[in-house]
């Protein structure tokens, strides 16, 4: 299909602001009379607050908040799940610190310097409790409860053994399935607790008005969910809570939930009766959010013919001090596993455990990088052991066209209607030189070369025919201005990947208006209709889908009114962009002289007092099509230092119609960088004794790959499938999270290819590689000793 606008690159609409330093992020907002806030965070991993003496801080002129000053409503900060599945275990400020860095008090003062002074003047009396950095220790019968209870669906539920939630999902009968298998493979995989390392620390400004209303400028992926939560917590009717969209300096999932500082900032502003700004320091931010750390035991049965008969996944998630979305995490861990490969029989057993560490949340992929690391590592091993080419083996077993797909959990099922996997695997293999890859175990010498492959997907949104356990819909309001330009009023947040840009293109394409005449309005919760949140790789597919639906309606109005003016049937009309006039032009192919520009039409409507061409629509997508992705990694290992160099990467994406080509490539390149960090570098270690991060929250020791670790530009090969998703706007589906999901597994498989060693624990650091090589040497020398002894014994026997 060919399009006027989709698939072309333009200067981004937010580009001028971003390249001139004028884009406004939450941390850039400054208001008259504004005070600065600081948060008192627990130095202890688990401790009850006996008292806080705030007198000295107040004497300095600061406004002080403690647990006593804030609403005691227990809330869950991620209201994406439907109310029956919201695990409410936190309050605005804590009366008990459940992890180092938990917010227990806050101050605001005219300057940050004074706020800092006031913060240090707070005297806290702590009762130190035993703390747990290990989920196994936390589950011991005699362990101190991290939470006594939580609220679920209005009920207070006691917490036992610090287990936050469990979930079992079954398809068929795995015992029967494993009985049919000729081979059974099993491995345990451990993934790391990495930090989002988004460039902007969580920030918020709140401006209270004398009439009791508030205006909030937060770092968030969902302005509407922040609004609803603030309304509930502070008992303010929603029409008096306005949350403004400001640019986000990266979040990668860490602001799906309302960040903990937002209600603190609001509470301070309400108490101080003036605008308050709260910007987290980097060290605070590093104690605020991490990716879910999991231990995944995966068992797969296959027949002699290479067909999977059964799968069994046992997942343990270490969620930290609060349950942000552990129930949903277990659901998707089951879903990702079930939707990667066809398991006629599958059992998923998941358990999420509280520990006294930073609360975990989604990080680009939400459980998918973890599940895919396990599945794609094990599938590579199975294929190798059974003497299959991993590509062929995966093609035989993956969930593709016509398959049932329920990535977002058992309640979010739909049928796969577009599938670029065969093409991507074929193209990627060719680009990387898959057939010429080394044979494991054949290389000697210091530098060893390996090529590895992994595939995966993410869902485009969390929509399905049934309502499901998570909310998923978007809304858009589109109006035609009196000069023929277009305003899109959409609550969706753009992480920077170009979601809003894509939405503008979809609208421009549908309306036949030059993209230069389509604007994205500033958004806030007063003027937009609801959009759930920019997560789950749903921006283009669901957010774009809603905008498309509204555009279709506006287009019908355009034709209806134009038909009156042109004297032609509405159904005979067309509209397309005229770049000389910089207008959409409405015309009938049979009567080319009867034409009118959209601007002239809109102006005529105004002159005639006929009204505005506009529509507002909400859309629930009833599918969540898989955005497939394939990774081929070519690397070199220095076996003397353990250091890994990424030589080349071929990353293939099936995102349906490519709406923003340059930005889609950017998603894949960014996915590689973050995936490489997850695979090889990034880790967040907690000191078991103190419950502190070993990095102390300083970026000196929270390292991520940077430009030096990236392959050279020509060696990052990106490619796309020629697919069309029937349920997406102009055939588009998602890309964002998919872009990183299989990356770690591709690295692990490439390392196996180079070294003949399977790595099952992330990150695969230089140190781990060296010690695995040493163990390999030891095994080899033991084996040769054994062989030698055996030969000697045989010779002696012969004598």
């Amino acid at each position, binding site marked *: 299909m060919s399009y006027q606008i989709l698939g072309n690159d333009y200067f*981004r609409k937010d580009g001028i602001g*971003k*390249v001139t*330093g004028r*884009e406004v992020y939450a941390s850039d907002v400054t208001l008259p009379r504004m005070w600065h806030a600081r948060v008192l965070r627990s130095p202890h991993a688990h401790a009850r607050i006996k008292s806080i003496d705030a007198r000295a801080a107040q004497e300095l002129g600061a406004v002080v908040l403690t647990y006593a000053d804030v609403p005691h409503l227990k809330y869950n900060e991620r209201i994406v799940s439907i109310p029956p599945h919201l695990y409410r275990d936190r309050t605005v400020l804590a009366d008990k610190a459940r992890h180092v860095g938990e917010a227990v008090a806050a101050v605001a003062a005219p300057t940050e310097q004074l706020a800092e002074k006031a913060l240090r003047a707070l005297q806290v009396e702590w009762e130190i409790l035993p703390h747990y950095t290990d989920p196994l220790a936390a589950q011991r019968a005699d362990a101190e409860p991290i939470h006594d209870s939580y609220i679920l669906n209005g009920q207070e539920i006691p917490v036992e053994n610090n287990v936050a939630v469990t979930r079992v999902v079954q398809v068929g009968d795995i015992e029967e399935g494993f009985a049919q298998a000729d081979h059974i493979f099993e491995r345990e995989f451990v993934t790391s607790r990495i930090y989002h390392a*988004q*460039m902007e620390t969580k920030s918020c400004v709140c401006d209270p008005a004398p009439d009791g209303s508030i205006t909030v400028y937060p770092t968030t992926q969902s302005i509407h969910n922040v609004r609803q939560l603030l309304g509930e917590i502070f008992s303010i009717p929603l029409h008096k809570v306005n949350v403004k969209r400001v640019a986000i300096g990266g979040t990668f999932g860490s602001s799906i939930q309302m960040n903990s500082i937002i209600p603190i900032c609001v509470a301070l502003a309400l108490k101080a009766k003036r605008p308050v700004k709260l910007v987290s320091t980097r060290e605070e931010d590093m104690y605020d959010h991490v990716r879910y750390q999991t231990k995944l035991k995966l068992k797969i049965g296959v027949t002699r013919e290479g067909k999977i008969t059964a799968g069994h996944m046992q997942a343990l998630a270490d969620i930290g001090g609060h349950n942000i979305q552990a129930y949903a995490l277990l659901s998707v861990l089951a879903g990702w596993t079930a939707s990667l490969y066809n398991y006629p029989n599958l059992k998923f057993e998941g358990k999420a455990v509280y520990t006294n560490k930073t609360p975990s949340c989604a990080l680009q992929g939400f459980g998918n990088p973890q599940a895919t690391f396990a599945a794609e590592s094990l599938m590579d091993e199975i294929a190798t052991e059974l003497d299959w080419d991993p590509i062929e083996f995966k093609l035989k077993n993956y969930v593709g066209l016509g398959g049932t797909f329920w990535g977002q959990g058992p309640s979010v099922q739909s049928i796969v209607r577009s599938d670029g996997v065969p093409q991507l695997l074929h193209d990627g293999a060719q680009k990387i030189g898959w057939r010429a890859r080394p044979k494991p175990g054949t290389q000697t010498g210091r530098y060893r070369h390996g090529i590895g492959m992994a595939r995966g997907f993410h869902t485009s949104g969390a929509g399905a025919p049934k309502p499901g356990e998570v909310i998923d819909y978007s809304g858009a309001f589109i109006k035609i201005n009196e000069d023929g330009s277009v305003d899109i009023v959409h609550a969706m947040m753009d992480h920077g990947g170009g979601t809003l840009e894509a939405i503008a293109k979809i609208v421009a394409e549908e309306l036949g208006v030059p993209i230069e005449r389509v604007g994205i309005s500033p958004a806030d919760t007063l003027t937009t209709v609801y959009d759930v949140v920019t997560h789950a790789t749903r921006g283009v597919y669901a957010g774009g889908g809603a905008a498309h639906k509204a555009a279709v309606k506006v287009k019908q109005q355009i034709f209806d009114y134009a038909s009156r003016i042109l004297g032609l049937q509405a159904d005979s009309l067309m509209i397309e962009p005229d770049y000389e006039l910089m207008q959409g032009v409405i015309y009938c192919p049979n009567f080319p002289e009867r034409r009118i520009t959209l601007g002239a039409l809109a102006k005529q409507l105004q002159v005639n007092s006929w009204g505005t061409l506009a529509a507002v629509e909400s859309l629930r997508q009833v599918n969540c099509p898989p955005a497939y992705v394939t990774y081929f990694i070519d690397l070199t290992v220095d076996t003397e230092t353990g250091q890994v160099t990424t030589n080349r990467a071929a990353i293939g994406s099936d995102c349906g119609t490519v709406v923003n080509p340059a930005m889609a490539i950017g998603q*894949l390149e960014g996915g590689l960088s973050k995936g490489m960090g997850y695979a090889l570098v990034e880790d967040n270690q907690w000191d078991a004794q103190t419950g502190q991060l070993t990095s102390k929250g300083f970026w000196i020791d929270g390292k991520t790959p940077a*430009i030096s670790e*990236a392959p050279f530009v020509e060696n990052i090969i990106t490619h796309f499938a020629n697919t069309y998703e029937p349920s997406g706007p102009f055939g588009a589906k998602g890309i964002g999270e998919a872009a990183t999901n299989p990356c770690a597994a591709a690295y692990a498989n490439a390392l196996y290819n180079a070294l003949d060693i399977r790595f099952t624990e992330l990150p695969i650091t230089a140190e781990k590689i060296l010690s695995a090589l040493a163990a390999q040497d030891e095994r080899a020398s033991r084996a040769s000793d054994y062989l030698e002894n055996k030969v000697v014994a045989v010779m002696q026997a012969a004598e």
Partner: protein
Amino acid sequence: MDKKTIHLTLNGEAREWRVYPNELLLNTLREQEFLTGTKYGCGIGECGACTVHVNGAPRLACLTLALACEGADILTIEGLARDGKLDAVQEAFLGQSAFQCGFCTSDMIMMTRALLNENPQPTETQVRDYLRGNLCRCTGYASIVRAALDAAEMERQETA
């Protein structure tokens, strides 16, 4: 601790600042001058988000005392475009969509500008070396390298 007065040039204009000894250039720029294009990322010189030019050289504003800028010539991202015309580096970043969230874009552009001032025709290796201390969590850096090389090429053609 008392405020002191200093004089300097900021984005081509003369300025007088009254600052405390412990005031950081980063915060003076952001809070006194409202030049918020220069960002706080880590506060300890590990991310490059606060990069500005001081007397022509790239510096970290989070580790620079405002008082130490007496007499200095400071250029921030806001001063890069002149007379309503974008700098070639800004043009190139736009052309390559070499940003996503945009939070590191100011520092990446200021570093690329400093590189091209020193070395108008850098190789990719030289670009990588020069930008090694500037973190970007979105792009994976490839588009940034492409933009830097594009900017050099645009300026070469302009001077040719």
